[in-house]
């Protein structure tokens, strides 16, 4: 266990910013804190780094307590590396000196060797003498990563590291950074509001809302088995379709009877909401059921249709892009709901 958060609370004055967050990160894993802006994910990261104090709970790095109610180890003594949203490169130092900033006590030869090694690692051989303002955004981001990795930190923290880059560059850099971290066996935590970035980078993702950790899980489970309405809503697309519990294995909805595990809290006759993803609804010309196209969005490989069922409820549906239907047209659908996700209806 490399990082352990144990019932963390953070408060500014009387305002709770983070309440009761716990999770663990294994050695060599990449974790991600995902949530809408203002949810407290950056505060949580800064608490791990030591820039914020916690009001209760414990943070342990490599089994050593670094934060608790009474103890606060300064950030410079935590052996962490950090990559910032704006990269925070030092403008007065060359790329090589930026990278060497955290290892200045090293013997000169070793230091140079380490800097060279890192330049190669991040693909910037020959850029050592340049200054940050001469580099592109993507290159600056690599320098920031090399600088954070130089002292061989036990934990790397990345605060929205891709948000200042344009989409194309992001798509290219995200897998590359993951490859570097995995190759170097770095344990890391990433903060982001972009779920696709989280999916591409992280082994485990924690979804945070209003200071609370909703779920700590793999991307696959977050999508298919969301633990709360918020996670269901925040991750991926989908709608909540009302239904009525028939028995322990079946729910009746506008789409027909759906089979699956019903949580024990829901008895027969109980009103529930069922999460229906766009990929759960299959467009099928031979189907028994029809729905009216009320909106469509062409996305290249497929269409995202918004369909109105005869009951008036709406569902989303992905259809291959050669299935071009007009708005108002009625098309045949059937459902393939493999993971039944049910929430009791809100009053």
């Amino acid at each position, binding site marked *: 266990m490399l990082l352990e958060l144990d019932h963390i609370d953070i408060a500014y004055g009387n305002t709770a910013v983070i309440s009761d967050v716990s999770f663990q990160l294994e050695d060599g894993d990449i974790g991600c804190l995902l949530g809408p802006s203002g949810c407290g994910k950056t505060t949580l990261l800064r608490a791990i780094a030591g820039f914020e104090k916690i009001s209760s709970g414990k943070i342990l790095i490599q089994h050593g307590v670094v934060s608790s109610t009474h103890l606060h180890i300064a950030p410079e003594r935590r052996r962490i590396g950090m990559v*910032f949203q704006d990269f925070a490169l030092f403008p007065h130092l060359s790329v090589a000196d930026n990278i060497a900033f955290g290892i200045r006590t090293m013997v000169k030869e070793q230091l140079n060797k380490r800097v060279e090694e890192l330049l190669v690692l991040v693909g910037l051989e020959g850029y050592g003498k340049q200054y940050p303002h001469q580099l592109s955004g993507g290159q600056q981001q690599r320098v920031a990563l090399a600088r954070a990795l130089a002292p061989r930190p036990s934990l790397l923290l990345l605060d929205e590291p891709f948000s200042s880059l344009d989409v194309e560059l992001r798509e290219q850099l995200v897998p590359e950074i993951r490859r570097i971290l995995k190759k170097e066996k770095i344990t890391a935590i990433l903060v982001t509001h972009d779920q696709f970035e989280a999916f591409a980078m992280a082994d485990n993702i924690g979804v945070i809302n209003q200071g609370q950790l909703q779920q700590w899980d793999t991307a696959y489970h977050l999508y298919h088995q969301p633990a709360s309405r918020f996670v269901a809503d925040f991750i991926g697309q989908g709608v909540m379709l009302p239904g009525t519990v028939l028995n322990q294995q079946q729910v009746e909805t506008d789409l027909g009877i759906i089979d699956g595990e019903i949580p024990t809290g829901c008895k027969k006759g109980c009103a529930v909401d069922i999460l229906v993803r766009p990929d759960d609804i299959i467009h099928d010309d031979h189907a028994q059921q029809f729905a009216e196209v009320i909106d469509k969005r062409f996305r290249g490989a497929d269409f995202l249709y918004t369909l109105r069922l005869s009951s008036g409820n709406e569902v989303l549906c992905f259809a291959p892009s050669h299935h071009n239907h007009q708005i108002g047209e009625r098309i045949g659908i059937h459902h393939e709901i493999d993971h039944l996700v049910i929430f009791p209806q809100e009053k």
Partner: protein
Amino acid sequence: MQLTKRQQASTFNLPRPDWWRGSVFLVTLILALPVLVIFSFIFTPSGEVWQHLADTVLADYVSNSLLLVFGVAIGTLLIGVSSAWVVTATSFPGRKLFEWALLLPMAIPAYIIAYTYTGMLDFAGPVQTALREWYGWGYGDYWFPDIRSLWGAALMLTLVLYPYVYLLARAAFLEQSVCILDVGRSMGMGPWAVLFKIALPLARPAIITGLSLALMETLADFGTVQYFGVDTFTTGIFRTWLGLGDSAAAAQLSAMLLVFVFTLVIIERWSRRQAQYFSSRTFKPMPRIKLTGMRATFAFITCFLPLLFGFLLPAGQLLSWSIDTAGEMIDSSFFSLIINSLLLAGSAAIIALVIALFMTYGKRMRGNKAISTAVRISAMGYAVPGTVLAVGVMIPFAWLDNTLDSWMRDQFGYSTGLLLSGTIIALLFAYTVRFLSVSLQTVEAGLGKIRHSMDDAGRSLGYTPGQVLTYIHLPIMRSTLLTAVLMVFVDVLKELPATLMLRPFNFNTLAVRAYELAGDERLADASSAALAIVLVGIIPVIMLSRAIARAKPGEEHVT
């Protein structure tokens, strides 16, 4: 960017109770003391002297000050805006040179250009002598305008103050995107129509900002109007204070002047805010109109005349005078003048820097609304005229000295004499109040370049807060600190009225010496001191022009 206040505040953990914040407020209060003292006199009943002033000269003070402001406003607008438009919108031989050389008149304090033109234009001066020789006139045969008049003073002030308008107008014209101006062109407007219908209205807030700065300097001017015998508020305050010895009346006059000054401050602040609405997002500098032949000559003259009359002629005259008089004027007492001035300006610059650092770091670490307001208030001194400031410093300092002295005599039978008033301390305090804003602005801009994430990056790489200051802040801030010191240094060196009124007995500086010699009609003898001030005054002009050159990368691609 999600840098909230709490994140900024946690960069360094300061001990509680928070003495830093408290000290910022205390320093602000001390710096605001002179202005508060002056305003407190609005409410004291007016004495005999005030009544006398109100009956006799007050109307003159008001009308002369306003006429002066009016004249300088017209003059600086004409020169500043036209030259700024010509150097930004067109291209002609010499344009690049004028771009920075048009700032040179800023190096000459108004009172020095006034002495110089008086010497050049008086009966025995080179201009009238040449006219007489040319036409064979004698004394009394011809009429020659008297420079020593209200309109002469307005002209002198215009010649050295137009760069304020020029600087801000030029910056505003440069910011105007080609897109906006192209809209005008696409609607069939010619270059003149574009100037009057689009460019000028867009630049108006910036121009008003520059104008209000120039007018604040006009109201603050003492040396020029005093020498030209124009009765304004500043000369009135000086005379009431020294001649009539009535501090209450002087303070009441000062309060009245401050009302005018703060009106300008409010206009300046307001127009700065307006200016923000006008900058467009997508920026592409406009292509210059290439001028040739007559039009190029006309553009050249538009830029050359202000430079000629605002700098080349007076500086050349000063140089030739000081070469003539160097033998007798440059002696050991001249060197002690220089040393006095340098020590005084240097100390003031360093005090201002230390306070500016203290306040800006306080704001960075402990920033909240109250701190920001405190910092803004302590930067207000730039608007307070030197004469007003001297009165505002002298009254509380004299009171403190007297109170302490009588208490010591009562208790111990020992007289402390004057500890604060009439000493260097009073002088340094006044300089700090007046010029702190220069230091503050520079340091704030410099520190703003060091983002909070850089502090955090340093900490995450194993550096303690102290090491972050040494290895990150200090190297990045070095040139900023130097700039802040130099700017205040030069301003102090040029300052006349506060120095004149607050200096210790027999303590002379270059500015005071130039004033005294000029007052004795020894204009040529005053030239060495005046030239020394001008030479030092060129330093900030060079720094400004370098900032101008840096501020627009990529210009080469366009021209």
